[in-house]
């Protein structure tokens, strides 16, 4: 693995070296290294690009890293990763994609991650998307995440795209059975001429299921963001979506929340707010000795932390 790939790996997965536990590192279109454990198996798909991650029921306190890095300009790939998480598991899955595009051709990673989360299982899923490189070639990532959660299962998803991705169309869908719950925390920043569309679709089908989708976004320069959150309550359930966005420069942001109750006991809330950085916030930090630019950076970093 070269220096560029190591840097990408550190950015998206916080990895300085080979991770402990199970992992599958995909670099420039193929698996570069893999490790499985007694409880976590990783199998290459034979009909299409991608892997199956199979976690035995009852696996606790284990983690799987599955980072993807593209450091050659001009690669376009579509990857299908399926996660089969057994009943009663408590595991952390760290995905993410880093693109370094030093050339003129576009680099694109599209991935469909499908989760099958068993009964009473707890999953923490972290994905980071990051782009860099001095080339003029576009860096594109279109991640789709489909989550099926069985009775009393729980998914906590953290999804972060802070820098360097020129275009992204992110789709997250969740289907919840009785007592199942999902919490999503999204952090998104776009700059330059970037475009980001993020769509959440949650169907709460089981009694006592719940969903909480929280998105914080900052759009700078001439970038454009669209946020869509559709939450459907088909049973006694509780759903909440929140989009909080800071708009700067000449950016554009749309937030389109949609909640649908198909059951008398469905309780659904959506909140969406877009606004520029409050002048008072800048002034307060300037009275502490920060310049206007430093104050702005502090506010944006805090907001996305």
């Amino acid at each position, binding site marked *: 693995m070269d220096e560029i790939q190591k840097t990408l790996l550190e950015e998206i997965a916080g990895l300085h070296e080979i991770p402990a536990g199970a992992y599958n590192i995909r670099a420039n279109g193929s698996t570069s290294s893999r490790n499985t454990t007694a409880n976590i198996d990783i199998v290459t798909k034979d009909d299409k690009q991608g892997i199956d991650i199979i976690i035995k029921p009852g696996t606790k306190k284990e983690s799987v890293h599955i980072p993807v890095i593209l450091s050659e300009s001009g690669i376009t790939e579509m990857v299908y990763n399926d996660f089969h998480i057994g009943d009663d598991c408590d595991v952390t899955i760290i995905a993410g994609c880093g693109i370094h595009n030093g050339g003129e051709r576009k680099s694109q990673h599209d991935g469909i991650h499908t989760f099958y989360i068993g009964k009473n299982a707890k999953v923490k899923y972290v994905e980071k998307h990051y782009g860099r490189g001095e080339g003029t070639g576009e860096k594109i990532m279109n991640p789709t995440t489909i989550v099926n959660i069985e009775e009393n299962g729980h998914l906590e998803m953290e999804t972060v795209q802070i820098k360097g991705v020129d275009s992204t169309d992110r789709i997250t869908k969740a289907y919840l059975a009785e007592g199942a719950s999902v919490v999503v925390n999204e952090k998104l920043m776009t700059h330059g001429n970037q475009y980001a569309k993020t769509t959440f679709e949650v169907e709460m089908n089981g009694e006592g299921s719940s969903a909480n989708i929280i998105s*914080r976004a900052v759009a700078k320069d001439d970038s454009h963001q669209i946020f869509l959150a559709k939450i459907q309550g088909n049973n006694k359930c509780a759903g909440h979506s929140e989009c*909080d966005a800071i708009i700067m420069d000449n950016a554009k942001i749309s937030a389109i929340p949609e909640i649908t109750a198909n059951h008398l006991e469905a309780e659904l809330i959506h909140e969406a707010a877009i606004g520029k950085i*409050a002048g*008072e*916030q800048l*002034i*307060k*930090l*300037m*009275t*502490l*000795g*920060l*310049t*206007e630019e430093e104050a702005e950076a*502090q*506010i944006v*970093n*805090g*907001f*996305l*932390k």
Partner: protein
Amino acid sequence: MLELIDISFSVEEDGKVKEILKDINITIDDKKFVAITGPNGGGKSTLAKIIAGIEKPTAGKILFNGTDITDMSITDRAKLGISYAFQQPVRFKGIKVKDLIKLAAGEGVSVASACDYLSEVGLCARDYINRDVDGSLSGGELKRIEIATIIARNTELSVFDEPEAGIDLWSFKNLIKVFEKMHKQSEKSIIIISHQERILNIADEIIVVAAGQVKSRGTKDEILPEVLNGNTLEGCKYYND
């Protein structure tokens, strides 16, 4: 030393010029604790903002230790040694109490000293240090954190705009102690805009600003009777009754 020389400030409202401050001349000597009081809408808060650089005077000059700071930015004045506590503290999503105090005290401040500043204003540091400075804090809590940031800065001049506003009576007693301590222990100057008799009582000097002008200035013995009897001081009537 802070010198305000012939400071005027006006705004345009519905095409008419409205004078907020007229020919204000005030000198604040080093190590002095000065209270500025007067009726609401008299121009006190504007004066504080002019000292901090948030508003620019339409006429006049401001000297700080002999340096003309009239055209200086908020940031440069802060670096030069002027602190300003907001009447209504600002909320931030994602900035923690710890972060704000670190920004105020400068890099290198330890969590332990950040905690000390919070204790100074009567907040249990453990409960607050990692909280966001956002809507989850009450007005009184925010106010005390605001004051803690000023203590942490420890600059030559600190300006407080109505520190008592939004603080309950019980906390107010402790707040008085905070200012007394600041005054006794430190060699710095303090300007407090206040309506509270108990704050005026601990000041070296009281300046009454009304209708955009300095109406009178002197020691508390000279000014307090006039203020309390003359009813120029709104908000203190309750205590007088």
